[in-house]
């Protein structure tokens, strides 16, 4: 075995050596579009000097499905199903943003019960999205068991979503005018059971990761990007909160009665992969707090706005009342008209600021709907984050950004 150990045995070819010291030969590596750590179809063209990244250029668009174009031929009512499919880990958040934009254009008041229900569901969605993030991110950097724990709880949330809407992912449950269906009997028990146990589960994840030297060495002081760069690039969400900035739409400009809930904007100052992990872990606890408050203080009343011209009528009423049948026919065939105008509505999704810019020309179809998606903006920070880092740290850095390619490409 001596020959194998003896590295001096084979002479190194002259062209493999750098022409002058410090100037190595560079290799271009094509990471993706099918790479397990990109969690979707993202291609990154990386220029390497040894193991160090000199240049990184993300190439997106592989998942572009023309959703914004599609909106222009759908009625406002049909559009909500498209919002589910933008960010497939934050369906309810996108539903909510769209619903709020349309309601703002129509200047429609939503009953308190529907608003609180929306907050509760969106926070469950945040927990679900962060669970998928934590599981897959830990898997990427080598901690396998966390994945199974996270997906155990995610399954509970998917069951809650299914219980409410009949769908595990593409819920379309939050609609302009309120909710799609009446909250099913027994939902309090189901959500209560989940939220009773969830905080102790977060402690489990923390125990699994926080004491692992591998986890700490792979996340601390990795994936640094300065706060100024982030602001310049328009980064939002847990990434910018991990840099110490309390940027959170829920607190800055509360929507859907968030001002009535007591919660903290979680920040961390280290600005590395570990800081982003800490922020999301704290957000698990804060979201659980919000869900608990919503559960305890859920107001009584209607779960839909009193707007028969835009909210689908009850099936029972359709069988007995002529007006209900007419409204149903009108909404389904022609759709409701939205007054001409434009609105930019933003909410805090699990990944950052979602902003829907909706333009109406007074007809029953959106004239233009632009989605400002957090993944698109956050992904721009990839280049400054990974340049100068080791290639193994790219995986950790990418994971800490928590982008969804469906959200990026739309």
């Amino acid at each position, binding site marked *: 075995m001596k020959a194998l150990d003896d590295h001096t045995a084979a002479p190194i070819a002259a062209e493999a050596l750098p022409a002058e010291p410090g100037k190595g030969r560079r290799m271009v590596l094509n990471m993706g579009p099918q790479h397990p750590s990109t969690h979707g179809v993202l291609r990154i063209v990386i220029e390497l000097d040894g193991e160090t990244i000199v240049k990184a250029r993300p190439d*997106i*668009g592989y998942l*572009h499905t*023309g959703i*914004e*174009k*599609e909106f*222009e*031929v759908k009625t406002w009512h049909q559009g909500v199903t498209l919002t589910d499919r933008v960010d497939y880990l934050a369906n309810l958040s996108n539903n909510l943003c769209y619903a709020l934009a349309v309601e*703002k*254009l129509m*200047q429609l008041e939503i009953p308190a019960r529907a608003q609180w229900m929306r907050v509760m569901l969106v926070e469950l969605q945040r927990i679900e999205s962060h669970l998928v993030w934590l599981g897959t991110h830990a898997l990427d950097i080598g901690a396998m068991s966390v994945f199974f724990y996270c997906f155990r709880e995610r399954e509970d949330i998917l069951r809650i979503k299914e219980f409410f809407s009949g769908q595990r992912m593409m819920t379309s449950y939050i609609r302009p005018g309120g909710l799609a269906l009446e909250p099913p009997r027994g939902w309090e028990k189901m959500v209560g059971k989940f939220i009773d146990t969830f905080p102790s589960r977060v402690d489990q994840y923390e125990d699994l990761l926080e004491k692992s030297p591998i986890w700490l060495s792979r996340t601390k002081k990795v994936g640094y990007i300065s706060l100024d*760069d982030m*602001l*310049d*690039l*328009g*980064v939002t969400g847990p990434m910018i909160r991990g840099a110490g*900035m309390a*940027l959170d739409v829920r607190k*800055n*400009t509360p929507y859907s009665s968030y001002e009535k809930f007591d919660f903290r904007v979680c920040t961390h100052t280290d600005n590395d992969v570990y800081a982003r992990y800490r922020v999301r872990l704290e957000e698990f606890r804060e979201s659980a707090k919000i869900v608990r408050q919503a559960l305890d203080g859920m107001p009584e009343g209607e779960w839909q706005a009193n707007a028969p011209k835009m909210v689908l009528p009850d099936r029972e009423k359709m069988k007995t009342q002529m007006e209900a049948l007419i409204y149903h026919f009108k909404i389904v065939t022609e759709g409701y008209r939205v007054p001409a*105008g*434009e*609105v*930019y509505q*933003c909410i805090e999704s699990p990944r950052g*600021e979602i*902003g829907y*810019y909706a*333009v109406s020309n007074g007809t029953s179809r959106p*004239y*233009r709907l*632009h989605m*400002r998606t957090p993944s*698109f*903006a956050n*992904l*721009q920070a990839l280049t400054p984050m990974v340049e100068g880092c080791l290639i193994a740290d790219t995986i950790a850095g990418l994971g800490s950004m928590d982008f969804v390619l469906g959200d990026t*490409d*739309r």
Partner: protein
Amino acid sequence: MLSEQVLTHAVAGEVNGRFPEAILEANDHLGELTLYIDPAQIVAVCAFLKHEGKFIRLSGITATDWHPADPRFEIIYHLHSFDRNLRVRLKCRVPESSASIDSVTGVWRGADWYEREVFDMFGVTFRNHPDMTRILMPEDWDGHPLRKDYPIHGHKYSYQSEKS
């Protein structure tokens, strides 16, 4: 002419005070301030709002196609100030005959991808942009999908082999 009521809005007043000719039109429909800016001054106004108006964040850039109206395109900038907790919308009208406008990448680096997206989807080019290429569609794509005269389907097949 700008209405007195809009000028009472702090941001409109600041911009109007510094660039008296820049605001062509303004409204605050649904409580959202929109300023129509002269396209020739958009970079100067953005730089002023960023450095002196504390609008350090650019939320996004997008466009609307008002085909067949002239000027055809509206380029829309959403600005956000964290310190003042304010949002403002800037708009520039761009005609189809010279569909280009100055890039604001010098003010916010984050404008890069948004401007590429607008170019990709609407065919409006941005002068002084570091890399004015398509971002979402394939590089050799024909046409700009979000233009109103671009069909929703049946435009062309993307694979050569499927052409008969």
